[in-house]
């Protein structure tokens, strides 16, 4: 797995979602980003993450529902970004 990309994504998530008090080490790469466990992100965060991958990697998600599988964890996100990135 691309550790550099994973660290980069964690830093971007912390910044984009205002998780001020967290560091990349606090985010478990495999843990779910949404729901009660993990980071407990919600629907607005999904939209914010869609904007994040468009801004930083040129990936346009037409259907927000796709986000559910892509944003399951930092690991799934990194996998998707590495396969689909335009920049």
């Amino acid at each position, binding site marked *: 797995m691309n550790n550099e990309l994973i660290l980069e994504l964690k830093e971007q998530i912390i910044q984009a979602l205002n998780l001020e008090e967290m560091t990349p080490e606090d985010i478990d790469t495999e843990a779910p980003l949404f729901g009660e466990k993990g980071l407990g992100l919600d*629907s*607005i965060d999904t939209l*914010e993450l869609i904007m994040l991958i468009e801004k930083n990697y040129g990936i346009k998600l037409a259907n927000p529902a796709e986000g559910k599988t892509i944003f399951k964890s930092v690991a799934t996100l990194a996998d998707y970004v590495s396969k689909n990135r335009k920049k």
Partner: protein
Amino acid sequence: MVYRIADNIVSPLGETTAENYQAIKTGSSALCRYDHRWQIPEPFTASLFTEAQGRALAVSGLTRFEALAYASARRAIEDAAICVATANTVFILSTTKGNIELIGQLSGDDRPVYPGTAARHIAEKLGITTLPVTVCNACISGVSAIILGMRLIEAGQFDYAVVCGADVQSKFTVSGFQSLKAVAEEACRPFDMERVGLNLGEAAATIVLGREKPSADSWAILRGAVRNDAFHISSPSKNGEGARLALSAVTKDTDTGRLAFINAHGTATMFNDQMESVAIERAALNTIPVNALKGYYGHTLGAAGILETVLSMAAADDHTIIGTRGFAERGVSGRVLLSSENAITCKHDFVKMISGFGGGNGAILVGKEEQGKPCVDGNERGSKRGCTIRQRVSVTPAGAFVNGRKLETTATGKALLTELYKCYVDDYPRYYKMDGLCRLGFIASELLLQAEGHREEAPREDWAVVFANRSSSIGADKCYQASIQDAENYYPSPAAFVYTLPNIVTGEIAIRNHYLGETSFYILPEKDDNTIAMLIEAAFQDTATKYILGGWIDYPDDAHFAAETYIIMNDER
């Protein structure tokens, strides 16, 4: 009893209520597709004034937004034939974003975009001399404003209320709703299977309310209620609990057989329409026809609650239930009665319902009381007698005080709030997502409730959250504007946009504490303790309200915020 003295609508479909009503009765709509308006890359459909209409509305010394609101309020006052330049008249402005289109042009002074500034300009132009109150309660503002007007007249504070709702559209609002994936490219389809989102619209609508009955068959605002979902700041709850409670509050112990229709919010987003259908069914009102008017005007934001109430009165006077334009096949699980065609009715009362960001839901019962037999006994309504302030909390960049005792803190400014969070809360990471205004209100509410000493886990309908300020959501507004200002780096931030409504703080507190009671946010041109007290007293006129967590919370910037908050209890309930 509080009566409708006069009303007006200024929209792309006409400049009087009659013109607007005739337009929608014959199926006209001002919705139009725009492909590159305001340099917004994604196409959208909206109901906007044409350039010629805009020029005709322009008034020297007023902004585009102010001139629109003024045009509607002026016509309504003329029709009412009352003198407004006395201490007996209050101006209530309902808006979500007022002059926000000026935010890219500010130079040091933020006041031009404060909604209270706009309210003052409009009131002065109208010749109204009392301090104007702006209702900034997101999409439910219009209904909230009518309820406030009703309460202030019933309480004897004023004889007349000029209640005006308005919003204009701009890159700020359209891109924001697009960032939330809520905007449809084509004309919206309320409650339909194929609905994909809302359209935005520009309009102003005014109702002049008064205590004196103008004629034998005058319309009256019979009841009004606001309830919160306590679920999410931008999504309605799945079971429509807040909307159900608001509907039940305004129809309880009344003869619902008198209702001609329920005018729903019907924005045509997936979640709103689904939630409303569930709420109507759960309130056992699903035998009454339902309609929605967004297919004619789009969502006119601060105007919507007033515009749709005025049109519903005109329709009921014409014995007509206006068809839901854009609707074809029911695409909601609640079994509600909808039609795209106009229908005839011999009944005359109706319920206007509305829901919005911050979890707020409003409903009013509007009707014509029978001679000598009012629908609602005025004595049922609450009074201000026997209210006690139980706790007080104030917070400024210099420190925090609980009932006069200064808390030991070391940080100042914005960092003070985070220090207070870590020291006194520390189990609610949502705090870090909040904008400055929400953090301030949240910390003040936590300190108040800790001083109160007990917290209940069960949902409470008897707790209301009522705040006022001056600078609205200026911090969040600037934060969101930064995400759209640069065309080369245009990435509208949904997380920033949701906080560009000041009433979100009331929703955050309701969610944290499971409060299902009223949530309201008001804006004043300046801090005025008498007016704040009047607004809090008005909230107690809802007899379901026993406790109010509220006061003043203003967050113009990280160095100048101020909270003066309290828990106040009505001892008689």
